[in-house]
């Protein structure tokens, strides 16, 4: 099967508007005859479900949470980008496009990224109209701040809770549609399979988490907005329930998986405190606007930070990157922190941390201003570590945070299965090999509010839909295979819990498929992963049964899928013999230790096709062309 990206012809800045005109429309009176399933109701899912509902479609929205407001979009702290140029500092759609392509290390599609930059301004307008309380200046205008990887102030924010406020905006729009009857929301349902009939996505099987019943739903199109797969590493900044199951099962039904190895490590997280650690907490990278990162110049210096004089501190980011300083992109900041700790300069009990110091900002701006900007982050840090960051520097360390990879989609956000659309973090589309800060919220909402409603309508208008029933053999087959997996898991009755397996598996992923990857390490991972997977199916212990609320059974299915996806991540990382963005292969670096791309050989999207449990996945390549933003060696010096 050949990959068709369906990028429209014409100049970059006209592609989307021309495409919008060419796309077919569905008559308003006919829209209610079409049912569309939306799985996941975070930023991308809630916004698309609400927008489709407003258009008049019959929408069924599913979440494994009790309410859309619990989705992990809620935890995004820092902000959302838009090139409004309200700051008069030279911003433009083209500059946001350029920064995003460059930040992604020239591994994203130009046309997609340009469109993202183009519609991002509308997102701010939309959210303001919903009553999102963005930060304002004293004249009442919207306030902006700068963020990593950019030299203009284009980030809109609502204190340190921007994701929360944007999600509550999308959630309120969804609640409004639920009240109006155009959207039906199904809570505590987990999608366990996609049903494909005659080559089209025509429904899903969801498990009702309260009573274990498998439920079948039919539709004319299915939208996955199910988030990323960072929890493959066990410890990550993702919420505990965030998982890859819906996307992975769609992959097994024929949706190609794009660039699985692009996993982002966030530089400013609170370090691990012990074996009991269940997840990691991110501190918004907006902290790097005013915080200065340093380590002691002397290895293993155990003095308290305040006892280390200025001239014995190494502000290594400012030293290495004089023009960007502490605001270098995430991957660079993460790797330098790891280097410092690997070389023995790390601080704290574990030695796996660096300082993020606000002393000079507090001196310059006063405690009040810092509290206004970062108050909730400082409180959060204090709550977790019992240390006061107003008095002593924070300790930070990188952690898995976001996955740029995801199901492959064309320009219309449709996967390789006709009628299956994938939005937000669940798709691979816009961030290339590395995502810039404040771009995830932008992409989720761009997909949901302003792109998918058009492209899904075009799909509905361009295709014929035979009536399908939930009794169709395809639904029965899917239900039976889910039941078989569940029964198998429950019958093992081994001696190790799901969490123990997950933790062990995550450690392998972090050690060999984490921040610095090598051919040797990846090969090692590829021999260890199948073994631990085999162990899992022989020794996992799950109590309870399939007909009750059973949290262990829920986790077990997700972990089983992570163990398959983890192998694909390692395979993808192994075949990509270059370093780019967040994918860093130790063998491929410049003399300064920067990512060394190989544009001749690897300027492509890797899209993996599932061929069955016993077969190797097949790699397809979508080559990337850069007509506007010419690839250059990224430099933040």
């Amino acid at each position: 099967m050949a990959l068709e990206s369906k990028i429209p012809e014409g100049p970059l800045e006209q592609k989307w508007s021309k495409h919008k005109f060419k796309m077919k429309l569905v008559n308003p009176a006919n829209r209610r005859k079409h049912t569309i399933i939306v799985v996941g109701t975070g930023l991308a899912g809630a916004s698309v479900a609400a927008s489709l509902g407003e258009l008049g479609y019959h929408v069924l929205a599913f979440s494994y949470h009790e309410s859309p407001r619990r989705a992990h979009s809620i935890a995004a702290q820092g902000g959302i980008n838009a090139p409004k140029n309200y700051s008069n500092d030279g911003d433009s759609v083209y500059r946001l496009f350029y920064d995003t392509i460059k930040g992604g290390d020239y591994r994203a599609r130009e046309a997609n990224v340009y469109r993202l930059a183009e519609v991002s301004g509308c997102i701010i307008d939309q959210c303001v109209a919903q009553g999102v309380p963005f930060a304002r200046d004293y004249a009442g205008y919207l306030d902006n701040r700068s963020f990593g990887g950019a030299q203009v102030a284009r980030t809109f924010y609502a204190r340190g809770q921007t994701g929360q406020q944007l999600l509550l905006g999308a959630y309120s729009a969804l609640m409004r549609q639920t009240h109006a009857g155009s959207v039906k929301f199904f809570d505590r349902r987990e999608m366990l399979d996609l049903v494909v009939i005659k080559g089209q996505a025509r429904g899903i099987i969801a498990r009702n988490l309260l009573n274990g019943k498998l439920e079948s739903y039919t539709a004319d199109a299915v939208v996955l907005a199910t988030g990323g797969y960072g929890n493959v590493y066990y410890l990550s900044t993702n919420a505990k329930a965030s998982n890859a199951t819906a996307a992975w099962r769609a992959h097994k039904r024929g949706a190609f998986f794009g660039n699985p190895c692009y996993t982002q490590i966030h530089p400013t997280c609170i370090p691990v405190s012990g074996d009991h650690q269940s997840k990691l907490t991110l501190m918004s990278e907006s902290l790097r606007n005013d915080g200065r990162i340093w380590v002691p110049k002397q290895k293993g210096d155990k003095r308290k930070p305040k006892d280390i004089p200025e001239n014995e501190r190494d502000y290594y980011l400012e030293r290495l990157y004089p023009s960007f300083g502490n605001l270098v992109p995430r991957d660079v900041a993460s790797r330098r922190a790891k280097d410092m700790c690997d070389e023995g300069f790390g601080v704290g009990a574990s030695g796996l941390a660096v300082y993020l110091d606000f002393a000079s900002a507090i001196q310059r701006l006063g405690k009040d201003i810092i509290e206004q900007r970062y108050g909730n982050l400082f409180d959060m840090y204090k709550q977790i570590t019992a240390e006061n960051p107003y008095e002593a520097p924070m300790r930070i360390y990188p952690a898995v945070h976001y996955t740029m990879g995801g199901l492959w989609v064309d320009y219309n956000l449709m996967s390789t299965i006709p009628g299956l659309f994938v939005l937000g973090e669940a798709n691979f589309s816009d961030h290339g090999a590395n995502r810039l800060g404040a771009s995830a919220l932008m992409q989720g909402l761009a997909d949901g509010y302003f792109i998918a409603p058009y492209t899904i309508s075009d799909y509905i208008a361009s295709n014929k839909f035979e009536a399908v029933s939930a009794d169709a053999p395809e639904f029965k087959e899917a239900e039976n295979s889910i039941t078989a997996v569940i029964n198998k898991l429950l019958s093992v009755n081994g001696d190790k819990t799901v969490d123990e397996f997950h933790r062990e598996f995550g450690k392998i992923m972090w050690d060999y498929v984490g921040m610095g990857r090598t051919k040797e390490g990846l090969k090692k991972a590829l021999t260890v992963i199948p073994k631990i997977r085999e162990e899992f199916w022989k020794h996992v212990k799950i109590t309870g049964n399939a007909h009750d609320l059973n949290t262990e059974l829920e986790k077990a299915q997700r972990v089983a899928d992570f163990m398959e996806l983890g192998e694909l991540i390692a395979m993808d990382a192994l075949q990509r013999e270059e370093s780019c963005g967040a994918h860093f292969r130790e063998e491929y670096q410049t003399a300064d230790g920067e990512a060394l791309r190989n544009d001749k050989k690897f300027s492509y999207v890797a899209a993996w096709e599932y061929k069955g449990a016993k077969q190797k996945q097949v790699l397809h390549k979508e080559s990337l062309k850069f007509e506007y933003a010419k690839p250059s060696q990224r430099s933040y010096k």
Partner: protein
Amino acid sequence: MKVTLKVWRQKDKNDEGRFVDYAADEVSPDMSFLEMLDVVNVGLVKKGEIPIAFDHDCREGICGSCGMMINGRAHGPGRGIATCQLHMRSFQDGDEIVVEPWRAQAFPVIKDLMVDRTALDRIMQAGGYTSAKTGGVPDGNAILVPKPAADEAFDAAACIGCGACVAICPNSSAMLFVAAKVSQLSILPQGQAEREARVENMIAQMDEELFGGCSNTYACEAECPKGISVRHIGRLNHELLRAKL
């Protein structure tokens, strides 16, 4: 450190429920309360027992999923935190800790410490929004919001919908939850067009869900993980009166 837990176990909403004692013997003060429960649950599964069910997700105090009564306090001791942000260093070695679900008629128990809070969504459906459709809205800077108003609206909008205010209220009232949304949107210019209908509809839905009324104990403000002030309840009452006049 070692602690003894008295945990409410209830198989499903029809089960009567009971307290069961568990010993947590290897507790680190750096663990969060939920991580301590994780460890207890690993022990239960290994013994072939059903683990304690509780809602949780982000574990950083923003999703609003977790919530339990710990020694009679919503989200346990400490102010301005959700249960996931409570750390074991807040307890002493040898403590006995009583853990119960939120108790309110409008929040039926699903299992153990999990309750059904969908009533809060239904209150939101009744009017917790501006009816701005996708597209067709003015430029963000065309709507000026004075900074004090934006700040006050944000203070209200910070609500995470966890239900602690309901759980701690002697009347199981959802006034603080409703007030937070009504207040946010009545302060902002964007919320003016539907100001009267919103407050009336949300209050009507709150009553229908069998939440009680407010008798000014201020317990909700004291236990709110986001420190949402009862002055928003004052504004809610003002808005209701204004709508009726």
